[in-house]
């Protein structure tokens, strides 16, 4: 088990290095020279070159990347031009806010998809199954930002029940989490349904029925626990989807997380901030998914058995 964790962490390191390089390289290509923006209007080329050196912006992109990486390891991502604050500070301030939204949405997704998927499977080929699948399909096909706007129109503007944006109190979380959750719920419902359909045909449910277990208990106790295994297995990637989706949703709902920070940085041409945000966000996301994976390996005895061999 310990070896499994170490192996996962070791395998993650080259990926994270790759991620940071790719992002750094791409953002470096972006037009908008930070030095030219910072320098006073009447600066001579020599002065600009000096500034470049001072800021560590001289040399090839590889040289600059390794300098950046060296600082990154020390927790220094440079200073945001538009916000005049250290990028790391800004990121760490915003990341928990995104996590809040991501986990909130997953909670919503599970609350919607598990009962829906099970109902669909236990009523296979009935109108209930059909409706659930159409709903799930719509959930997958709907652009999340559009759903967000529709929900704002209905619940915030028309009915006035919930705030349309910001992060004031629990009520403000409901709409963003619902929007993002609906998106995740689409695929989770489909997974739950097919997993449950698979379990329903298993012989051990017949054994349970032959024992005199009531139909309700057969589904809730004997089938559900088995059906949930694939759902737990995809929890990591669901979480990844939630993080990725959060970027859009934050923009729609003015949710002050990393996604909104990144998009604003791009719009402000603040490449230092954008680069730092994208790299750190991806790293933290990868780590969170890893933690979840390890946690569920501890929970499921069969996975534990597989890795301790």
């Amino acid at each position, binding site marked *: 088990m310990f070896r499994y964790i170490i192996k996962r962490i070791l395998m993650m390191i*080259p*990926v*994270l290095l*790759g*991620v940071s390089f*790719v*992002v750094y390289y*791409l*953002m*470096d*290509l*972006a*037009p908008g020279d930070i030095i030219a923006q910072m320098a006073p209007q009447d600066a001579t080329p020599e002065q600009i070159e000096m500034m470049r050196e001072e800021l560590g912006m001289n040399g090839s992109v590889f040289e600059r990347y390794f300098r950046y990486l060296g600082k990154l390891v020390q927790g220094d991502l440079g200073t945001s031009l538009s916000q005049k604050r250290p990028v790391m500070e800004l990121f760490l301030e915003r990341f928990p806010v995104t996590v809040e939204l991501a986990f909130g949405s997953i909670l919503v997704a599970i609350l919607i998809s598990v009962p829906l998927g099970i109902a669909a499977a236990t009523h296979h080929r009935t109108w209930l199954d059909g409706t659930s699948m159409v709903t799930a*399909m*719509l959930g*997958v*096909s*709907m*652009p999340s*930002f*559009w759903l967000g*706007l*529709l929900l*704002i*129109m209905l619940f915030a*503007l028309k009915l006035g029940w919930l705030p349309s944006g910001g992060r004031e109190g629990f009520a403000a979380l409901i709409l963003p989490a619902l929007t993002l959750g609906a998106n995740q719920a689409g695929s989770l419902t489909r997974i739950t349904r097919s997993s449950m*359909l698979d379990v329903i045909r298993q012989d051990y449910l017949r054994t349970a029925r032959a024992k005199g277990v009531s139909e309700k208990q057969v589904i809730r106790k004997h089938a559900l626990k088995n059906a949930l295994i694939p759902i737990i297995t995809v929890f990591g990637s669901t979480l*990844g989807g939630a*993080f*990725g989706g959060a*970027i*859009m949703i934050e*923009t*729609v709902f003015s949710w002050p997380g990393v996604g909104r920070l*990144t*998009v604003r940085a*791009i*719009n402000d041409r603040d*490449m230092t901030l*954008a680069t730092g945000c*994208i790299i750190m*966000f*991806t790293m933290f*996301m*990868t780590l969170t998914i890893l933690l979840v994976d390890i946690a569920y390996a501890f929970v499921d005895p069969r996975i534990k058995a597989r890795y301790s061999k």
Partner: protein
Amino acid sequence: MLLLTRASKRAIRSEVNAVETVKRKFTAAELQQYKKRSMFGEVWRNYKKSPSAMIGLVVLVIIIVVAIVAQFIYDYDTDIVQQNIKERFQTPSAEHPFGTDQYGRDVLTRVLYGAKYSLAVGIVSVAISCVLGSSLGLIAGYYGGFTENLILRVCEVFAGIPSVLLGIAIMSAFGQSIVVLMFAIGLVYVPMFARTARAAVLPVRDQEYIEAARVSGVGDLKIIFGHVLPNAMSPIIVQVTMGVANGILTASSLSFLGLGVPVPAPEWGAMLSGGREFIRDYGYLTLFPGLAIMITVLVFNLMGDGLRDALDPKLKQ
């Protein structure tokens, strides 16, 4: 559709021919062709059984026709982007079924004209990621070892970055244009195809007929495309349809953030973004472009589902 039925008829005829000429020796190419055709007919027969998949196909044909016709009946400069401030914010009416936007442009016209952006970006980008990703996946799966490891790690890097963020990075690096958008999204979905192709190759890799081909001196490329690729076709085809759906979603997301197809082009995501400011009073501005995105994405998802069931009937139920 006409084409398909004709193809399936051809498939049946070729089956008949095959039976009649059993004694004749077949060349490998002929056999391959025979196999392909009959498989195609079989898939089409299965596909036809699913009403939702057929609805998807029909609606897709309609969308494509609309996208093409719109290019001919509307003039980009006068009908699509020209501002007409006098007629701004007209709510849906007989004259403007979807209303007019903040610049007085007819929303219906723009939505219809905009179909080409989503379709083009979705299809071209998936073509890019399919060719690139599948090749990488085939190579990884076929050669194994270091090559496989390297390709997988690189894919992991690109898959690790959330697609919207990777899209943002690429768009800001190479500037905003529809061609860059196609490549950006193409790149985003490369890992998906690579993984699919590799997973399909793995069980085939050690089969004896591959070994036999290798021993008898058939080149690697020929083996990959002649023997390995056909086995990976089904999952790749399904991935293509699903990929178009995802590509359209990602493209509209980027446009919504102002990083996709540049304004004033009537890309649906960009239209949504423009209408968003007026959501309080003119909700229809966000309603219709979003609906258009959803229907298009839905169509590809329905087809993907249908194709998956048709290609692997065992999986159904």
